[in-house]
């Protein structure tokens, strides 16, 4: 058992209102520089939709992530020899058009325009060419609120699993449905970007698992951009280096959550430490598709288990880190309650950002001015919240996104979430019978205590409960390979204030 600590994340999609505050917080801190205009380390997409860059989930086009070839785990992008052949000419990169052409507006004109017959306007100006744009054809969330549909939403890769009938139904007026998917770097346990980089510029920090891209070692091959199936590394055309989300590690190191977490209006984001068994990584990434979620969950270890704690300590994980893992909200969502799932586990990168899938409204028709949930009485189920089969967005779609097509995993999550709703509704509104509540609890394979705990951490969590930022101890971790005092500069001619070298 090789126990390591990982700063991990949960996004609760039910709470996301799609306001893009997270994206703006990130943009203002990290990507407001020259060459980063088109980058959104944090972006929010509308689903169903094609996302940013367009159809990033379609690995037949972008060749990101891993695949199993002859029982071996291989990069989908290329073999070592193939990578050498394509090194000057990677054929699977997204073009700038697949992201979008970044633009600003000519605000000056509103103040400086000469007097004329019409009001002055602020024309869109391309941030690439600096010239006015005649039409804006795409943006980082062009699908927003079905704005780009049906051209975009119907091309969502996850809809491939659905039958033609089901796909058609999604476009019926009463059934139209969408939800938001905020995305940052998943800081994967088996990252495709790291494996694809020919320069060895990308690495996973040992003490917290944050995946970073060295701006000194990057040689602009751009293989990471293809290698990452989530398209979360970006090429800066001004610096000639690739860049990616750094999970705001300077903030984490000073005890603050990352900016996108901190600024989230819906408070959908949770951050905490997971302890995992690194020995299982390869095995876990190689299991058949339908076992991926379970295998990944299995890799996460119980931070209260004395055996795990002993193994963690043997690996140099501090007591404070272990305490932090015990308080981690991520551990609860992912392992204890099992209601958070990784995004596209089928890419086999073992992402460490988990999503609680959204509870979309069930299908209803109006009858005599009231909503009538179709056919519920026949099934003997309580109205409104319980009918998973009548969910507007087919479970198969969610399974394609969150469980590599394993419908059972997604159903288990939803049954539990429904149990929480019914339990609390029976408590507050009192329009469910105790029998209904018990039935929902047993269907959700849960208990009243667990449901109450889920409710509290979902609806009423405090800042400290949402963000359990561990003491990263960077100053200690760095001493593993460097003597910090070596970097302290000498003064004058080097004679007057010579720093004594520390001996280890």
């Amino acid at each position: 058992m090789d126990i390591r600590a990982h700063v991990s994340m949960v996004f609760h999609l039910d709470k996301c209102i799609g306001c893009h505050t997270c994206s703006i917080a990130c943009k203002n801190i990290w990507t407001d520089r020259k060459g980063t205009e088109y980058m959104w380390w944090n972006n929010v997409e509308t689903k169903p939709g094609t996302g940013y860059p367009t159809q990033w989930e379609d690995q037949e086009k972008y060749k990101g992530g891993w695949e199993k070839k002859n029982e071996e785990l291989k990069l989908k992008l290329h073999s070592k020899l193939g990578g050498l052949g394509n090194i000057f000419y990677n054929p699977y990169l997204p073009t700038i058009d697949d992201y979008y052409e970044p633009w600003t507006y000519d605000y000056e004109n509103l103040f400086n325009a000469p007097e004329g017959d019409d009001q002055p306007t602020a024309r869109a100006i391309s941030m690439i060419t600096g010239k006015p744009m005649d039409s804006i054809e795409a943006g980082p969330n062009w699908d927003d609120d079905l704005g780009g549909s049906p051209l975009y939403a119907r091309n969502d890769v996850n809809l491939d699993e659905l039958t033609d009938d089901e796909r058609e139904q999604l476009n019926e007026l009463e059934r139209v449905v969408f939800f938001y998917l905020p995305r940052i770097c998943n800081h994967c346990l088996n990252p495709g970007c790291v494996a694809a980089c020919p320069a060895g510029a990308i690495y996973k920090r040992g003490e917290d698992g944050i995946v970073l891209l060295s701006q000194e070692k990057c040689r602009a091959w751009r293989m990471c951009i293809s290698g990452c199936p989530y398209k979360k590394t970006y090429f800066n055309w001004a610096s000639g280096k690739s860049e990616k989300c750094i999970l705001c590690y300077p903030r984490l190191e000073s005890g603050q959550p990352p900016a996108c977490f901190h600024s989230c209006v819906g408070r959908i984001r949770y951050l905490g430490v997971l302890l995992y068994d690194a020995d299982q990584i390869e095995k876990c990434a190689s299991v058949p598709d339908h076992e991926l979620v379970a295998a990944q969950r299995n890799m996460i270890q119980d931070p209260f288990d004395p055996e795990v704690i002993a193994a963690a300590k043997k690996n140099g994980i501090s007591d404070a880190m272990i305490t932090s893992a015990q308080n981690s909200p991520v551990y609860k969502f992912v392992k204890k309650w099992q209601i958070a799932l990784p995004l596209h586990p089928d890419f086999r990168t073992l992402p460490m950002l988990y999503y609680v899938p959204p509870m979309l409204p069930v299908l209803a028709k109006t009858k005599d001015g009231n909503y009538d949930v179709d056919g519920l009485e026949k099934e003997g189920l309580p109205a409104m919240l319980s009918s998973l089969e009548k969910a507007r967005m087919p479970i198969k779609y969610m399974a394609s996104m969150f469980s590599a097509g394993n419908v059972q995993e997604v159903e288990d999550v939803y049954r539990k979430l429904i149990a929480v709703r019914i339990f609390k509704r029976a408590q507050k509104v009192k329009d469910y019978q105790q029998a209904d509540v018990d039935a929902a609890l047993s269907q959700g394979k849960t208990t009243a205590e667990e449901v109450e705990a889920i409710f509290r951490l979902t609806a009423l969590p405090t800042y400290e409960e949402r963000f359990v930022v561990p003491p990263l101890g960077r100053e200690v971790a760095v001493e593993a390979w460097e003597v910090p005092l070596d970097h302290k500069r000498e003064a004058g001619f080097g004679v007057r204030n010579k720093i004594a070298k520390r001996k280890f």
Partner: protein
Amino acid sequence: MTEDKKPSPIFRRIMPFLILGAGLAFMAGTFRVVSAMPPNQTDGEALFTAKGCNACHTIGGGDLVGPDLAGVTERRTEEWLTNWLTAPDQMLASDPDAQAMLAQYNNVPMPNLGLTPDEVAALIAYMGGGATTGGATAELPTGDATSGKAYFVGDKRFENGGPQCMSCHSVAGLGAALGGGSLGPDLTTSGFVQSDAAFASFMGAPSTQTMGAVWANTPLTAQEQADLYAFLSKASVTKRDPSALLQITLLSVVGAAVLIGLAQVYWGKRSKGVRKPMIERTLAAKK
């Protein structure tokens, strides 16, 4: 942190001055070394050999690669000679007399030897002084063209380890189109190979910058010179077949087309983009 021994306060105070002083002393030293360089040579006869004039010229011994210099001070004005010796490359660009002479001597240009004004004056004085040098220094033995070709392409090594001619020069009669390197002049029509005396005299101690540097420490033997001369003066070598030029043009065009075609087959799908084709496909499906 421990600071065991600090320099004494007085020493610390004067240290910057000591360093400054040491720096100045060092600079003064370099200056003296520069000024101690040997003075300009004023001995024209020695210069004529040292600068390699004799590789191409005689005084009263007949033309070699370049003209016989006997009586040159009467044929040309002193000003013209001074300009010519100082910067022959500039004269060739502007002076019609110089250009006519270049044509007369098989387009072998006089190299710029980087002479100082003193050296130029010394050389003119020497040439006007009525001195003579001999003709070509030694008779070449009988050469073997086959062996010369082997030397040229590098099948046979030069005794003193010099590089094969082909690495810098090309010549007709080697294969079809690609006859060698292009750093040095094409030897097919070169004036260096006009007479065995000129060839031997030049190859004995080449005075041009590149050739001089290459051959100074690895001189050719007399037999090697003779073999090379025999090869280079063969009829098939001294004239380039026009069809060879056509051949090389065709080869490059076809080669480029094949490479582009291969790249297109292998990388053709690159950077087609995803969004635009997707939109076009969707719109087409609707119709």
